[in-house]
């Protein structure tokens, strides 16, 4: 089939550049904007983390580490979600996403930061001899369940695996980001094909690393527990939460008078549909996992769940069922909500809160287990959790804000940009 000539494509790019929606002040933020906000967010983040350290001394280190882990797992899920969507959109030759892809890529480029945050988590675990990762503790060394899986759950191999996850994520994110940024400069449309190929093997590498990361950094906190769905369960938090952040980011840019005619309500509609759909996917996976454990009713699986259905944690589980699935499902089913930038972003913000609740429900019950001998200080200690989660979130958001302000808000020369500019939902 005919390709169009380079010359004809150049003309198309020139016309695209002359498109009123592509005017410079529509697709870039003014120099120096958002720096104050970014600085404030990063400052807030550092302050939150310092408070978390203080919390470790006021209460106990385990509590602080768990709260920090909740935050890290949340922002990692969002960043992985962005990597996932970028690759899926490349893989499927999507047209409509061209105008939102740069923001996805910006979120995705927070993965190196996440890797750093995870590294801190890992170092603390290794140094403390397993505050949360109970399998590191000497008192379980002779547990038959642990010796059976010792060749997986051991410190050197965990470090090796961490480097594999970190390497794969950083490589994929930077590679895809570079393709996109290079295209802004050179206008080489065949970079899309290279990004597509990277995404093909990238999705495979992504699935394996995300799955095993979830095993190693969440499931293995209780080494007795196992679930084949676990990797999918953690993955399922990424796509919807990333769409939530994307809706908020594009909404804020539009409030600044940017992206007029570039990211319109048609795009909002589609992002909100994906937010809705992937949130239902999360519910499907979460229900499937819970249901099979409940129905099978064998102690080695149910012990983990039973512990999260008592001592107040059952309330959080109910919040998840209602707040993470039922209410957003009923609200996001409505077309006007999905097409309203502010409402869709608000729904996204709510689901981000639910993401935190979900990770909290997974990790935090690990702290004051009967075996730990620690006594829960009660709800008064919640400020540590708040400080850690908000701290990590603000740090992450500040770094994101800086990157957003530093360059064009959309890929300027993507060959599918005309399609995205003209995107519409007819029905």
């Amino acid at each position, binding site marked *: 089939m005919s390709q169009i000539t380079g010359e*004809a494509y150049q003309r198309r790019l020139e016309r695209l550049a002359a*498109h009123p929606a592509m005017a410079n002040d529509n697709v870039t933020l003014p120099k120096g904007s958002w720096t104050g906000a970014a600085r404030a967010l990063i400052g807030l983040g550092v302050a939150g983390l310092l408070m978390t350290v203080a919390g470790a001394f006021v209460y106990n280190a385990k509590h602080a580490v768990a709260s920090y882990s909740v935050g890290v797992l949340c922002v990692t899920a969002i960043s992985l979600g962005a990597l996932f969507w970028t690759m899926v959109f490349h893989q499927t030759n999507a047209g409509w996403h061209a105008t939102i892809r740069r923001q996805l890529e910006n979120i995705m480029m927070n993965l190196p930061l996440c890797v750093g945050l995870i590294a801190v988590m890992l170092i603390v675990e290794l140094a403390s001899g397993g505050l949360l990762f109970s399998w590191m503790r000497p008192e379980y060394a002779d547990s038959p369940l642990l010796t059976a899986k010792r060749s997986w759950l051991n410190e050197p191999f965990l470090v090796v695996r961490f480097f594999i996850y970190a390497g794969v994520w950083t490589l994929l994110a930077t590679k895809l980001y570079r393709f996109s940024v290079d295209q802004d400069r050179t206008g080489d449309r065949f970079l899309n094909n290279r990004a597509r190929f990277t995404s093909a093997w990238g999705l495979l590498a992504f699935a394996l690393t995300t799955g095993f990361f979830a095993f190693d950094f969440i499931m293995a906190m209780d080494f007795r527990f196992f679930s084949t769905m676990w*990797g999918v369960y953690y993955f399922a938090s990424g796509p919807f939460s990333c769409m939530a952040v994307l809706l908020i980011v594009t909404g804020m840019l539009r409030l600044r008078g940017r992206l007029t005619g570039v990211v319109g309500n048609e795009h909002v509609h589609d992002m909100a549909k994906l937010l809705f759909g992937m949130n239902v996917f999360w519910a499907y*996976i979460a229900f499937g996992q819970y249901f099979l454990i409940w129905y099978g009713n*064998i102690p080695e699986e149910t012990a983990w769940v039973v512990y999260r259905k008592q001592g107040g944690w059952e309330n959080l589980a109910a919040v998840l069922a209602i707040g993470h699935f039922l209410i957003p499902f009923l609200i996001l089913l409505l077309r006007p909500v999905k097409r309203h930038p502010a409402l869709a972003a608000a729904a996204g913000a709510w689901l981000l809160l639910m993401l935190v609740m979900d990770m909290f429900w997974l990790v935090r019950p690990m702290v004051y287990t009967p075996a730990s001998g620690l006594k829960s200080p009660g709800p008064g200690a919640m400020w540590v959790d708040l400080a850690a989660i908000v701290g990590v979130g603000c740090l992450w958001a500040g770094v994101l804000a800086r990157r957003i302000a530093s360059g064009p808000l959309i890929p300027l020369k993507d060959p599918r*940009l005309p399609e995205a500019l003209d995107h519409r939902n007819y029905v």
Partner: protein
Amino acid sequence: MSATNPDRIISERLAGIVSGAPARDPRDDGSLNDDPAVRPPLVLNNRSFGEVTDIICGYAEHTPGKWWLPMFLLAASVAGIGVTMILYLIITGVGVWGLNNQINWAWDITNFVFWIGIGHAGTLISAILCIFKQKWRTAVNRSAEAMTIFAVICAGIFPAIHVGRIWFIWMVFPIPNYNSIWPNFRSPLLWDVFAVSTYATVSVLFWYMGMIPDLASLRDRADRRLRRAVAAGAKKRLPDLIRAYVFGLLSMGWRFSSRHWHRYEVAYLILAGVSTPLVLSVHSIVSFDFATSVVPGWHTTIFPPYFVAGAIFGGFAMVLLLLIPARELFSNFKDFLTLRHLENMAKIILVTGMMVGFAYSMEFFIAWYSGNEYERDAFLFNRVTPIWLSDRGAPYWWAYWTMITCNVLSPQVFWFKKMRRDPRAIWVVALLVTIGMWFERFVIIVTSLHRAWLPGEWHMFFPTPVDMLTFAGTCGIFLTLFLLFLRFLPVFAMAEVKAVLPQASPHGHDDHDHDDHGHADHGHGAAHGSGAHPGGHGPSHEKEAH
């Protein structure tokens, strides 16, 4: 400006400016385009609306060729053998199958899950790909939906006949009765009844509703021919009389009015929305049949999405298995089902194949990681290790390795562009995948059951000829129905195919011929979008360029 003249392509072709049917290169039919700036055509050879109608209605109005009748008779005979076997089973009892006390589910449930899985591709194409606005689905949706229904028919046979006393099958429905025998609502087998019957109902509705405009076209064409025949005094009127009557009934008064179309599009979207969770729920519930039981190899949490991915995988393989030969057997079929379509489906095979591969490895890893010796044994030894390698190995190792080879290894050839653009290679892989997916269910069901907790319960399963002929019979039923569909109904969704033709675009379309001819090109949308879009309309110099 060419964009304002939707008939330009047709008029140019009629005037001989653009050739209507250029010589085709079998390896590149014009749909394989790696330029990200150009969307390849979804229908080849610049077909006009009228030609699309003529070609697609033509399939339903004429005998496809000499191959059809012998093939139909063969398929119908095999179906007849299958029906005979089922009757023999009902008269004699399930003892005619190779089941035994330990392996009380074998080929029957394997075949059930196999067929119900085949159906999923149809719903995925018609519902999920519709929601994702994947326009290429128009080439395959109608036949895939038909296939869904035929596969569900085949699937429904097995649970019904495996109960033994089929005259009590009504007990699966929660009908009040005097003996107070109520179904167990906690049994996933009962949920199966609801899930599969809902799925069948919605699939039929979806298929039928989507077909109404096309049936009306067939009705109108038969009617027109009939009137001409009456006017000319021709004798041979009966076939068209039957068509006008049957299609007239089935098209429910469709008059192609814009109001009809509006309702149709809304209804289509609603059905797509309803069907999407159905695709997930049906096979999730089928997976619950196994996963809720505490049997090593059955009870694992990844089963629901793993079964759904496997169903889509097997379903797409079946779509390819049927449509690649159809491409060769029907004239002009390749204009609608291009190599690009095949390539897309090959990619889906690769993706879903790796999803099931992911699930296999997760099962395997967690079986080891759990430290549970029964779980470990079920995977590491019962499935994987050949009995001649270790005395802890199992006799069904070959079934597991057949599954891995067919489902995980064989689709890997689609990493190569050459392979996913070669219909023959795709067909071979599709065949292997179909075999592999049958074996997947066999491995899950029989391998897990044949080694129970106590060695005293260990048994082998050997299929009897009745087992085999019943399965062959369902293949016959499936093929018979599909051949009838090919012969009498519109194989492509005509109205939807027309909607993806370039001349259907209200704002004109990229005309890349012009680029090649050295004219200035005009990018889609950016140059001539709709006025409703804030930045849609191109600046005025755009228009001067043409």
